[in-house]
């Protein structure tokens, strides 16, 4: 860990750090952690935010002691320096109740500032009202938190736009249509047209980060998998990578190849499921049926290849836990993907379907950057970020995926990105599969983790985008702090922007299908 000299912060020191960042031989690997005094944080944030290709990927806090005895809180900012192939973590000790406002410089950080206030009782300087985002309304001072309770209750979310004249505000959900997750929207409308939309996710909050404290990474994996079941591989990969960094473990290459195959299979079935949801939302029942046939065949392929339809139980700390049935994969993948390919071809020739997608749910290019969006949602606006290309772990460094990109930022653009990614996933599975693939662990099961304790950052490009995790372990190898940041945490904040751009009610399910996020991934 490099310490940033207080006197150099924001200027020469920061520039020097960023200039040498991520270059081979810098010695710190792809993740550099820098200690920044909280008084210099504002200048550092401005400096890094101005660096080309820098993206604020996450903001979170940890308490040195869990009690409310005024223990010190460490604020961490995780910056993805996509152009430099590295991550920069700044750590600042917050001793009072306030720290410099981040959302003035990086608007994407507002949701995290709110969450940190609810969990740790520290807030950005200024009078800005903070919203309730993570914990439910009944969460009083005795509610289990990661730190101490806030002095004041956060405010309930309200529409940022003025509600007046003919516009009115009404809640929708959390119990919604058939077989979709519970999710609560606040809608502001003047009739048909959507003026505003905001989301609550606290009714699905299971307190996963709180739950993981005291567990070994191996024990925690069971819960990380079930935080967002449709992103099990991506999220457990990020978490395992973080734990491995903290433990000083390096999974064998064949296990990394196995992980990559599972991750691409996860991407494939999610994109097929999104296609089915798009057809359902536009009322194209026959297209939905065709996509569902593809989806079912892909899920059966997962079961044949790895023993579970949703690929639970593949990733393990130090490697992989499930054997890949390569023969089943080779024999079943072409047919399963063929179903999706043919369905997509027919859909792209069905004008009545395309008409519903085009110019619906438009996200402007700068919105993706401003809000720190990731994944297909970002790539459809022309922001070509992809953790497999920007922060490659083996085997992606060798088998380089081409990054799918579109410009229009509408539902159709997101659909096209997903289809291109599906084709690329099939190619990657074929190529990686031909390389050495097999199970393997960095240490034999039952032998326990490695000796060193510390902290680590892990990441993976899940089907929804970059999934991040950070863990800190004590001397006994048990978790003192686990931070999970699935892609959904980032991308839901783009959803209201997309819905607001001259859309009507019936467009909401279409836009939601094109984002293909989960409430579970953000509520966690």
């Amino acid at each position: 860990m490099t310490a940033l000299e207080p006197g150099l912060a924001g200027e020469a020191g920061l520039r020097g750090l960023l200039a040498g960042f991520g270059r081979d031989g810098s010695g710190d690997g792809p993740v550099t952690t820098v200690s920044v005094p909280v008084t210099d944080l504002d200048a550092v944030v401005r400096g890094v935010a101005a660096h080309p290709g820098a993206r604020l990927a996450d903001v979170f806090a940890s308490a040195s002691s869990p009690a409310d005895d005024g223990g010190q809180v460490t604020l961490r900012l995780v910056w993805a320096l996509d152009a430099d192939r590295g991550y920069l973590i700044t750590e600042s000790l917050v001793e009072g109740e306030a720290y410099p406002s981040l959302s003035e410089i990086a608007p994407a950080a507002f949701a995290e500032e709110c969450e940190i206030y609810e969990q740790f009782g520290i807030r950005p300087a200024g009078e800005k009202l903070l919203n309730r985002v993570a914990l439910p309304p009944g969460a009083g001072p005795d509610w289990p938190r990661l730190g101490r309770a806030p002095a004041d209750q956060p405010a309930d979310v309200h529409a940022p736009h003025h509600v007046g004249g003919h516009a009115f505000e009404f809640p929708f959900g959390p119990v919604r249509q058939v077989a979709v997750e519970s999710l609560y929207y606040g809608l502001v409308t003047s009739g048909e047209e959507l003026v505003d939309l905001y989301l609550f996710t606290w009714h699905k909050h299971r307190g996963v980060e709180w739950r993981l404290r005291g567990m070994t990474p191996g024990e925690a994996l069971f819960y990380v998998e079930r935080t967002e079941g449709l992103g099990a591989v991506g999220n457990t990969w990020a978490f395992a990578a973080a734990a491995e960094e903290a433990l000083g473990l390096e999974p064998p290459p064949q296990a990394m190849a196995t992980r990559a195959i599972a991750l691409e299979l996860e991407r494939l079935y999610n994109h097929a499921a999104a296609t089915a949801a798009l057809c359902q939302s536009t009322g194209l029942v026959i297209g939905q049926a065709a996509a569902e046939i593809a989806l079912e065949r892909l899920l059966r392929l997962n079961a044949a290849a790895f023993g579970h339809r949703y690929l639970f139980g593949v990733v393990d700390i130090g490697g992989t836990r499930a054997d890949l049935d390569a023969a089943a994969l080779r024999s079943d993948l072409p047919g399963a993907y063929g179903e999706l390919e043919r369905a997509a071809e027919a859909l792209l020739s069905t004008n009545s379907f395309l008409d519903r997608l085009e110019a619906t749910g438009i996200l402007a290019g700068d919105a993706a950057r401003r809000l720190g969006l990731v994944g297909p949602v970002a790539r459809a606006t022309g922001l070509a970020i992809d953790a497999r290309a920007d922060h490659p772990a083996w085997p992606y460094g060798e088998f380089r995926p081409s990054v799918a990109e579109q410009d229009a930022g509408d539902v159709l653009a997101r659909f096209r990105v997903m289809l291109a990614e599906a084709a690329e996933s099939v190619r990657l599975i074929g190529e990686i599969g031909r390389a050495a693939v097999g199970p393997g662990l960095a240490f034999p099961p039952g032998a326990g983790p490695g000796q060193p304790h510390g902290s680590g950052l892990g990441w993976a490009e899940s089907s929804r985008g970059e999934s991040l995790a950070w863990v800190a372990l004590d001397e006994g190898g048990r978790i003192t702090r686990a931070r999970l940041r699935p892609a959904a945490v980032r991308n839901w904040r783009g959803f209201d922007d997309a819905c607001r751009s001259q859309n009507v009610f019936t467009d909401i399910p279409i836009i939601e299908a094109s984002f293909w996020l989960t409430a579970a991934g953000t509520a966690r």
Partner: protein
Amino acid sequence: MPLWTLRGLRRGIVTTRYPARPDPSAALLPTPPAFRPDVLTPGLADRLVAVCPSRALARDGNLLVFDVGACTACGRCRAAAPEATASSGEFELAATAREHLIKRIPLGGSTR
């Protein structure tokens, strides 16, 4: 839309015949474990109880109490004691009473 009609007709029917006929895809599904009483010792049973992340296993004296309802078929108990467990192969697990899912397996193994 002749495009879709032709596609559909060519595709044919994929619908399962279940429950009239068994579905071969069921063979791919992960299923809860079955336990071998003749191999299970109290020590082994305790190891299994400790390794289950979903609290589906408990020991009651000379019985291993297995809650099929809490089981996620994660396979950790199978990996911890492959000689004492097997795959049950059962996926038709719906119960009309919660107790129907609580199984008591006697510990018959000798402590050698």
